[in-house]
């Protein structure tokens, strides 16, 4: 039995996602082992670690995207507030409306800017044009994209730049007003200026959403997050306040990683 990793505990009212001894195996190969942590409400939590450490797997467990992979086994427990999201009878589409996700590569649909943002709303049965327009504008404003695209809402989303596409994807995700926003290396495919814009956006969105961001850029984690979890080889090594983790790491592996000795 290994030692419990250094971790943080939150008041029940501040807990958004509660992970309890989560293990994930792909075709018998362990990707996550006994991970327990709590993602706090209305804060930015970063997952860092070298490639293959399981940080994306953990993120994709929060909206059950791992279900799409054949031969996946998940044990343990994840709660979104009071709800057990690993329950087999859970309506996965409803969960995914509550837990939005943004991927590494900007992936707008090959349709207009407006239709991209309206996609999730229409799925939920919102048909009235005026209501749609209001919601789309709100989402684009929240994603700090409105001023750049308000004159070309009918243009194809694929004509936007990479950074704009990524903010469009964020707008698309928040248009359905999720409770949690999962960002899987949201800036790794972008140039420095676009990255900066995304980071500013993350800071702003944290006022209304609980955000989990996966990154392998430690400076980025330090800049945008309030809490940081370090994962290594499928295990949680350390979870603490971002400042503490980067200035006073408690685990030896964390220290090695943030000082650049591996990863």
């Amino acid at each position: 039995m290994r030692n419990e990793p250094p971790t943080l505990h939150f008041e029940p009212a501040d807990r958004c996602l509660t992970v309890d001894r989560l293990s994930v195996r792909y075709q018998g190969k362990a990707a996550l082992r006994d991970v327990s942590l709590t993602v706090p409400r209305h804060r930015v939590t970063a997952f860092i670690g070298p490639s293959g450490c399981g940080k994306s797997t953990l993120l994709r467990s929060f909206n059950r995207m791992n279900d799409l992979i054949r031969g996946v086994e998940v044990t343990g427990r994840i709660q979104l507030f009071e709800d057990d999201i690993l329950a087999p009878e859970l309506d996965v589409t409803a969960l995914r409306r509550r837990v939005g996700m943004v991927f590494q590569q900007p992936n707008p649909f090959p349709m207009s800017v407006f239709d991209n943002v309206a996609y999730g709303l229409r799925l939920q049965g919102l048909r009235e044009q005026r209501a749609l327009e209001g919601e789309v504008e709100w989402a684009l404003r929240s994603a700090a994209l409105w001023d750049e695209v308000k004159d070309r809402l009918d243009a194809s989303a694929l004509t936007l730049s990479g950074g704009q596409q990524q903010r469009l994807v964020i707008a698309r995700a928040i248009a359905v007003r999720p409770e949690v926003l999962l960002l899987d290396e949201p800036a790794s495919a972008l140039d420095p200026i676009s990255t900066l814009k995304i980071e500013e956006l993350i800071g702003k969105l944290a006022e209304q959403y609980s955000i989990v961001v996966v990154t392998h850029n430690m400076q980025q984690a330090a800049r945008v997050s309030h809490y940081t979890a370090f994962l290594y080889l499928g295990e949680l090594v350390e979870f603490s306040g971002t400042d503490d983790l980067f200035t006073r790491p408690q685990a030896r592996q964390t220290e090695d990683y943030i000082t650049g000795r591996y990863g």
Partner: protein
Amino acid sequence: MSRPVGWRSGDGALWLSTGAVALTLLMTLALLGLLAQAGFGHFWPKALATVTFPERQGTPPVLAELREQSAFANAEGELEPRWLLRTGNRDWAAPDFRWVPVQGLGTVHFDPHAVELERRSWGPALGLLAPPGVPQAERQGAAEAALTALEAALRVPPGEREGALTLFAADGQRQALPYRQIVRYWLPNAMGWNAKLGVYFARLGAFLHEPPREANTEGGIFPALFGTVLMVMLMTVIVTPIGVIAAVYLHEYAPQGMLTQTLRVAVNNLAGVPSIVYGVFGLGFFVYGVGHRMDQALFADALPAPTFGTPGLLWASLTLALLTLPVMIVATEEGLSRVPRQLREASLALGATRLETLRKIILPSALPAVLTGVILAVARGAGEVAPLMLVGVVKLAPELPLDGTFPYLHLERQFMHLGFHIYDLAFQSPNVEAARPLVYTSALLLVIMIVLLNLGAVVLRAHLRGRHRDPLG
């Protein structure tokens, strides 16, 4: 470092591949060129020559089109050039085509009063409007009088026409040709270029919109054109949804294991089954199996006369749909596999179900590939003849499968098809020389029709692709 020489330089491979492309292009152009030259020329008014045979005693002069020259071996085994003369007048001066040795020909003279007439039966009539061998002024007057009478007669509907045109053969013999037999006439030796063009388009137009006459060697090919297009459309309507749904199952839902892979290989192999085999299957399964049972269930009072239990449009379309299904499935699956995983994930992560993702994201993205499948299926289906002979195509269909009587689209009717029409003209015609130009013309039309059908789908696909700057290509 010296540049590699010989085969290793790679220049040989370049030349080889360029040569292969050039050869392909050349063969295609040669094919189209031959069809265009032999097919389009048929309706052009050709000069009519009065030919004499001085070496052969007792052979009267004839009025004929000099069709072509080629060499034949004579009794001594030497090659000897001969002319093919088209003399027409099958009813009173058969045969209407004859080969004569060039050496036997005497003078060749183009009489301005020569006329060619298209008739309702017996093929074209060739003759002179004025008797030969009389003074020119007299001939002129006679020809003008005959023309005025002919034009006046043609203004009346055919059933009400009275009287007959007097035609003179080159040897002065008279023949009476009733006006009601005449479709149109032209004076090829006295016409300007513009007038010839007028006749050309009038004949081409008639060819496109009239039904055939005279065992398909006269008249038009409209029923065949119509039957081909209708059958291809029905086939497309049947094969597209089935092919897309099957491809969606294979690619999106089926577990990707040995079984699915075997299924996929089997589908691919179906594309290689000879088409006549599909015809036999269509006859055995659709016509005798399904059709017979449909008759028993729905048209029992008409039995023993079959309604659907006989070859017809529906069975032909279904058989061809089956034949083109593999092409459709393969093309669609190709398109589905090119839809990026990120798009599916994005849709699912927004709370879409798999069906919603399929309907709103995956299928629209795969649509250009589906249309590619349609293009390939149409190209394959429209050119297919062998299976159709078993399941619904006939030499001459009395009625079109689409008309004004309820239920308008008569799926049980037999129909005519351009491909089969070509076969019929080329091999089954009682009059080979008369049918030969029509073979080319029909073949050319078949090619043009397939090109047009494909072009429509290509334009549609380009339009769909252009709507978004599509990274899927």
